[in-house]
């Protein structure tokens, strides 16, 4: 069987695909690729910002304990983070769940803790990138590899993301502006976030719960009225 016949045979074995016509869309693999690369990229940038050096630390350790006897903490940390990045990428590409970006965010926070405190603007960018990576991963759980997602669906969600990022960046800018007065800035930021969250979760803004609550109140009132009408003496 020559090459042309083999190609024809392979083409015959492959099932034809359906055609679905929707508005402007992008392929699902782009979402999944972004979800795999962005959180781990943020994590690796945070690692780089820590300034951990493999070579110098390893030379210092070798000088004390002998060559290749004890791996340095920085080398270990670098190995751990790189391996973690690889695992998170492979996992997200194959079975996207919410865990990889959350692990990447926590790892980024821990690595940023070992970063000099005056690198504040970079942290703003990392926080925004970490959030976007999380959102992309959530989309990756909904959009399979060989599918397509409407641009309109992403745009509708982007409005929410823009609001959240706007508030985050505003809090960050305010915090950096008050950097001299640390306690006040931190306290104001945290209190502001918690107040905002409480305001959003207030029952009066939950229409579904409000209607359910009203219906239950009405049912209780009706049941009470029925019982009274049955027990009323003629």
């Amino acid at each position, binding site marked *: *069987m020559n090459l042309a*016949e083999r190609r024809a*045979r392979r083409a015959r074995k492959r*099932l*034809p695909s*359906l055609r*679905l*016509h*929707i508005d402007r869309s992008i392929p*699902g693999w782009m979402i999944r690729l972004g979800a795999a690369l962005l959180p781990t990229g943020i994590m690796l940038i945070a690692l780089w910002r820590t300034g951990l050096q493999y070579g110098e630390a390893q030379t210092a350790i070798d000088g004390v304990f002998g060559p290749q006897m004890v791996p340095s903490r920085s080398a270990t940390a670098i190995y751990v983070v790189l391996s973690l990045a690889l695992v998170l990428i492979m996992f997200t590409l194959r079975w996207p769940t*919410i*865990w990889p970006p*959350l692990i990447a*965010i*926590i790892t*980024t*926070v821990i690595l*940023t*803790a070992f970063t000099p*405190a005056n690198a504040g603007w970079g*942290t*703003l960018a*990392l*926080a*925004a990138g*970490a*959030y976007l990576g*999380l*959102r992309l991963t*959530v989309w990756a*759980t*909904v*959009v399979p590899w*060989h*599918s397509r*997602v*409407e641009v*309109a*669906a992403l*745009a*509708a*969600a982007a409005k*929410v*993301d823009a609001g*959240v*990022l706007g*508030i*985050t960046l505003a*809090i*960050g800018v305010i915090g*950096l502006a008050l950097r001299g007065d*640390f306690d006040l800035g*931190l306290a104001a*930021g*945290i209190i502001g*976030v918690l107040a905002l*969250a409480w305001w*959003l*979760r207030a029952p009066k803004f939950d229409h*579904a719960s409000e209607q359910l609550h009203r219906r239950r109140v009405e049912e209780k009132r009706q049941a009470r009225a029925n019982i009274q009408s049955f027990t009323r003496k003629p």
Partner: protein
Amino acid sequence: MIVAWRPSRNTALITAAGVIALLVGVLFGRADLALFGVPLVLVATLAERSRPEGNTEFSFSGLENNATGVVSETLTVAPAPGTEAVQVRVHGPGHRPAIVVVSGEAPQEIAARFDSLRTGPSPSFTVVARGYSTLAGYVEDPLLLTAPNRLVLPAAAPLLRVPTSRRLRGLTGPRRSPRLGDGAELRDIHQMMPGDRARRVDWRATARMSPELDQLFVRRTYASAEAGAVLVVDSRDDVGPDLTTWRGSEPLRVDQATSLDIARHAAAAIAAALTEAGDRVGLEDLARRRRPLAPAMGRRHLRRILQALALAAPIGEPSANIRPPQLASDVIVYLFTTLLDDAPLELVRSWCTLGMPVVVIDTLPGIYPVENLHLRLAWRITTMERADRLAELAALGVPAIRWAALDGEQAAERLETLVRVEQSHRHPSGGPR
């Protein structure tokens, strides 16, 4: 049907991660660390409060399109309020499923289409849809919808002329009968005989031939008549071009026409050509034991024939013994068969013995090359047996036309050739030379 929106763990996990980031910021005394937790807490809170209400609704509004080649439907998706996105997975018979994720803000339509070379009863689309709220915090239970099945009618390709029966019947019709009658074609000018009508008198000829008017001359015309044809479809087997599917364990692909599809298309084309010419056409199905379609004329009858062709299908194992259908002696028989056994040959012999003209349409599709040695040997033996049957048909004087994909376009020319050969063998009066 009430479908539930089930909360996922996303919101709780993201909230936990946000709180951890805030705590790390407090522990290390750094506001920039706490900043990582801010968007997480905010978006988790937004997702928690945006629980969708109601269910996603979707329905099919199919186009009235039963033409061969394309099956299309329009899916209307109406997401529940509060939905961020709807994942729609569409399955079609013999096709890879397609998945799209559409916006949950407003209802929209999705056009679904797949190509199919198959005819007859055809399953349509099956859709599984699922709604997601913000951050996939709430996920809807999957909703299933199946579009109604379709009956795909065969396409009647245009043909030139097709062979018709030599023996005409009746006194009306589109064809010229050798008998005298009330047709439009002039036969001769003859002396008026008892029974001739006065309005048939040709006064010019009378004035020319009998100036004294002692003998009147009339115009005599040929009678018009009609021809009949019966399409006999051998629907006992339905085989595709892939030999590995012949044993029945593997499904037939929708992008490969089978022998029954070819037979339906060929029969539809010939029926349309005969109906256009004004002849009567009947239909017999060898596999089904039900009343055949008696020969009739007209577009409505053609539609009936197309419907019956689409419903022709094999039942169980092909039977080796076929009871010959009862046919009138003045019809031409078109037999659509794969010639994979001797039963069609027996039928042809019996018809030829009765003097009925027969045309055999070979409906076996082009077979793909096989690698398996056993299959190759089996196919070689089958090919040789078919060649013997075709040789016997040629010896009986029965033309056999192959209607596979490659030869379908040339089939019209072959049929026209048969008509011209038949005409050249006829006496001008209509009888044989």
